[in-house]
């Protein structure tokens, strides 16, 4: 059985045109699946629906989202709260913006753990520190006592990933986790994401517009265009033998070192 099954999902905002129409795919345990496509293609809407955090007016009007055998669309708010954080967690594009600017990392981190579990403060900090170390943040003392503005973009992103992974969720959703970062820092974060899967067996759905990052990390890739999933397949199929013209165009459009130049 797949860890996550998305079946004929259609998502609409205020009964308008569907933002996601009739999308189906499966995610197996321990896989990294990337959703790629241009802005407005519906990839973010889709993963927000998995976590049940669609913006107001957004609703899954048809289809099922089945996590480990349970249709999470049928859960009430209370049950869904238990799923979030424990079973599914999410890393956002700009973790810095999703943090409280006037609270130290330590207190935010503890809050995110204590929401789900009643454990002593010490255990809580221990757990946070070991998770930060896994993300190669060596100076954990400083990071824990820092306010978000005292950390660099790459560090904040790692704190965000560490927070998301603390409860060892079955599924990690990452919405453009490297897009706001500089290229050398992006490479570091991509490396951490890869390690989460290789060392700790995490299952990850990655939304990105960076075809290179998707190609390096993914086992499977789904290409979205104007609310539809135009192609879904293994990484090698999509990258080396794309069937759809759109996928080919998307790949050609990526600027490459040693590729064609416009300037003369």
């Amino acid at each position: 059985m797949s860890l996550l099954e998305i079946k004929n999902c259609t998502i609409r905002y205020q009964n308008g045109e569907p933002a996601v129409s009739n999308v189906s795919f499966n995610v197996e345990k321990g896989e990294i699946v990337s959703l790629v496509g241009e802005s407005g293609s519906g990839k973010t809407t889709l993963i927000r629906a998995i976590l049940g955090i669609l913006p107001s007016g957004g609703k899954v009007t048809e289809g099922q989202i089945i996590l480990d055998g349970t249709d999470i669309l049928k859960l009430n708010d209370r049950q869904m709260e238990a799923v979030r954080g424990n079973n599914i967690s999410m890393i956002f594009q700009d973790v810095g913006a999703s943090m409280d600017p006037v609270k130290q990392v330590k207190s935010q981190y503890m809050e995110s753990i204590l929401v789900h579990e009643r454990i002593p403060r010490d255990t809580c900090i221990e757990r946070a520190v070991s998770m930060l170390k896994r993300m190669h943040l060596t100076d954990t003392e400083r990071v824990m006592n820092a306010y978000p503005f005292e950390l660099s973009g790459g560090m904040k992103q790692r704190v965000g990933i560490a927070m998301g992974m603390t409860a060892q969720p079955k599924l990690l959703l990452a919405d453009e986790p490297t897009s706001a970062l500089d290229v050398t820092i992006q490479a570091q974060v991509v490396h951490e994401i890869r390690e989460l899967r290789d060392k700790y067996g995490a299952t990850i759905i990655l939304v990105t517009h960076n075809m290179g990052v998707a190609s390096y990390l993914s086992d499977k890739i789904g290409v979205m265009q104007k609310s539809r999933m135009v192609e879904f397949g293994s990484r090698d199929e999509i990258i080396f033998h794309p069937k759809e013209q759109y996928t080919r165009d998307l790949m050609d459009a990526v600027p490459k070192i040693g590729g064609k130049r416009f300037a003369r």
Partner: protein
Amino acid sequence: MPDKNVLLMVKNVSKEFPVKKNKLYAVSDVSFSVSRGETLGLVGESGCGKSTLAKMIAGSLPVSTGSITLDGVDYTGLSAREFRKFRRNIQMVFQDPLSSFSPRMRIGTYLCEPRINYDHISRQEAMEEAGVLLEKVGLPVEFLNRYPHELSGGQLQRVAIARAIAINPKLLICDEATGALDVSIQNVIAKLLVDLVEEKNIGCIFIGHDLALVRSVTQHIAIMYLGRIVEYLDSETLEEKCMHPYTRALLEAIFDVYCDQNEDIKLLTGEPPSPLVVHKGCPFAQRCERCRNECLENRPELAEAGPNHLVACFNPL
């Protein structure tokens, strides 16, 4: 060496910002030139001073030391009044088109504004020109009556470019002008810029962090690190000829679409040092694999490494 074709000369430009009792060195001793019809790429990570440099060249930020000359005129010392007239020579295109537009101004009005302000032509005349400009950037004339929110990001960026070239500037500065756009639109805008620079024979500075994209639209690239240019070279032979370890690291950090998944990523550890501290040695030394004792003691100067090639490194590749 006064070259007739040289349009912009940046000479030993530095910028310091006072921070409490300290000084932040945003740009230190930067020199380069841009010829007519040439596009120069400025590449570096956030905080390396590329936008500060762009603002100084555009004249919206005074330089601390050094001089900037456009067409033989040093404009770093101009009075506000003189500068107002001079400003038309240099135009900028920004990253996020939607936030640089007034939401309640129609595209037509937006395009007319510079011509009316600088050349005092009639509104009707300006509107006719605006239509021509729109066609030039590949948009239908009907867009004159639209509002910014009715256009897509790529279309808006074309309008921003149209406005920038409306008053025939000599130099165009594009600060991450394609950064917020999807890859397919990015290429269209990049091509449009290249064509305009060539057709109008103007100079262009293209700032970006995507080395592959910058390479595709420029003739020369300057790589910046912590306020300094560390390498300057031809775009076409960037990959084969680059000598600075930082340039190499930037190249290696790009994920190729056809990459081998089993290959380890070559990681550059750490982050750039704080610009608040003055470093004795090479600013890149702490992150550099090829660092030697010399690198910790002295700072390498930008020196010639070949034709059109400058590099600041004691132990280049």
